[in-house]
């Protein structure tokens, strides 16, 4: 594949939805990849192919289709393992979503390692999916949650973070890449956790498709992401956990596939990774995610990163030139996400206006209500890039933004 700067021109052809017309006339400008990424044709085709020629349930039967499905399902696990550089495929658990992955960790990590009064550190910019599972522990079991401050530039205040750690701190759960600021976490945070014997979960929802992920270098104990934000199908998520932790922690859900032996009195559990995959898993979806990973690897993660960096920089500069727009966070350490507000225009108006121009941006609290409160707003608009976006689309967006302001503020 073409790896030069015009790469995105060719990439666009791989994504069928990008040729859609909005309201029958406007070219779609999809700037909502942070909410969910679009799917390349090859992923869609492979889902097709899977159901048309290889589908059945996995791991249980011994017949041909069962073999074909199981091999694909387990192959996907290996692809994920390589994608994030996990040591073993036993460390890759398929879930339905990053949200489920976090719920799984919160409950089972608590069960094994925590008790009332123990402490968890979150940050003010966590997504609700990385807040509520921990709130449940607080409300059910009396663990204590502390919040790390966010700096003006949109990053965790590392000194404040470190000051929150006590001997009772057991785990920190933090976003690897903020879905509001687009800021990447400071690597120091992991080393601080390591030094203090605090486990760390990184919420990689926004990073998995936009940064090179190496869970060993990241020194994290858990890493979660969603297939649908990674150019894969909906309905599939990933949990990476260090093998010794996953071995020690109890299972999460119970059901077929995760057992060893069952009598009316007792149950023993399967080895990893089956232990954490109760019930029929998202079979075709796992395969689709594997194909999406192949696709990203083919394009080249480095190429994707470079392209998105360029886009982000360009968009940030262009938007900064508009004096009626406030951007949250600053320009450094910003990856493919820009949240902003137009003075005196609600984000809903902005998004509805842009929609009619064919431009899809997100409006709302982005599942970050505590951060919105911290910013003193109810909602923001957010544009977010995928590998398929272009500089021309940013220009269309800038023009539309100017028209939007003129429409609402005469």
């Amino acid at each position, binding site marked *: 594949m073409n790896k030069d700067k015009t790469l995105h021109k060719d990439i666009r052809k791989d994504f069928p939805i990008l040729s859609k017309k909005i*309201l029958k006339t406007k070219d779609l400008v999809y700037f909502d990849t942070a909410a969910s990424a679009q799917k390349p044709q090859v992923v869609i085709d492979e889902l097709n192919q899977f159901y048309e020629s290889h589908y059945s349930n996995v791991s249980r039967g011994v017949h041909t289709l069962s073999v074909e499905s199981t091999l694909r399902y387990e192959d996907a696990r290996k692809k994920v393992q390589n994608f994030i550089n996990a040591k073993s495929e036993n460390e890759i658990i398929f879930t339905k979503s990053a949200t489920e992955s976090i719920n799984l960790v919160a409950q089972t990590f608590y069960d094994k390692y925590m008790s009332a009064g123990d402490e968890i550190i979150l940050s003010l910019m966590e997504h609700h999916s990385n807040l509520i599972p921990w709130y449940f522990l607080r409300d059910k079991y009396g663990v204590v949650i502390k919040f790390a401050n966010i700096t003006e530039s949109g990053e965790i205040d590392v000194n404040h973070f470190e000051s929150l750690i006590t001997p009772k701190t057991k785990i920190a759960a933090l976003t690897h890449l903020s879905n509001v600021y687009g800021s990447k976490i400071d690597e120091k945070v992991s080393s601080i956790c390591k030094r203090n014997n605090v486990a760390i979960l990184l919420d990689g929802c926004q990073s998995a498709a936009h940064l090179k992920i190496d869970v060993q270098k990241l020194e994290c104990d858990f890493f979660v992401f969603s297939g649908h934000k990674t150019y894969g199908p909906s309905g599939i998520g990933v949990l990476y956990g260090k093998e010794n932790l996953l071995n020690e922690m109890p299972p999460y859900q119970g059901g077929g596939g995760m057992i060893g032996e069952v009598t009316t009195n007792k149950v023993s559990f399967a080895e990893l990774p089956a232990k954490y995959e109760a019930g029929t898993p998202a079979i075709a979806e796992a395969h689709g995610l594997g194909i999406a990973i192949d696709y990203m690897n083919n394009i080249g993660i480095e190429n994707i990163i470079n392209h998105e960096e360029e886009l982000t920089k360009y968009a940030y500069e262009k938007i900064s030139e508009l004096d009626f727009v406030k951007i949250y966070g600053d320009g450094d350490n910003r990856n493919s996400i820009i949240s902003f507000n137009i003075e005196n225009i*609600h984000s809903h108006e902005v998004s509805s*206006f842009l929609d009619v121009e064919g431009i899809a941006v997100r409006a*709302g609290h982005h599942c970050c209500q505590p951060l919105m409160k911290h910013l003193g707003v*109810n*909602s923001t608009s957010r544009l977010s890039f995928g590998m398929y976006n272009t500089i021309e689309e940013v220009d269309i967006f800038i023009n539309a933004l100017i028209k939007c302001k003129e429409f*609402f503020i005469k």
Partner: protein
Amino acid sequence: MNELLKELYQEIILDHGKEPRNFGECEIHNKSAHGHNPLCGDKVSLTLFVDDDDIIKDIKFSGEGCAISVASASLMTEKLKGKKLSFAEDMFKDFTDLVKGSEESLSIIDEDDSLYALKGVKDFPMRVKCATLAWHTFKNALKE
């Protein structure tokens, strides 16, 4: 300018969105409710004074929201003040039908009604919740 947007953001909507009527809290009230739209964080607080004859003697709202939700709340308070609760309930039904695009089932609201200005919402289905937030809050206030 796009027709759908013009329909959605009629003058009266922009006007009520910017300068909402009946904004604040009723000095005396015997009914109230808070509403919010979990999708975007928008909020509305409603206070009412309903007399023994079920007449809405006073109604006010406050809160933060988009032009559609604020204008809708503002127009609602104008519309309901002085009306009987039973009329208000009928209005609720009509209004939700209107913004969802079931115009044929309207029994009270017609083209001359100020609320009719919100008809354009039907082409923006994800905005229906904005337009109906105040009305659902009103319903909840009555449940108290």
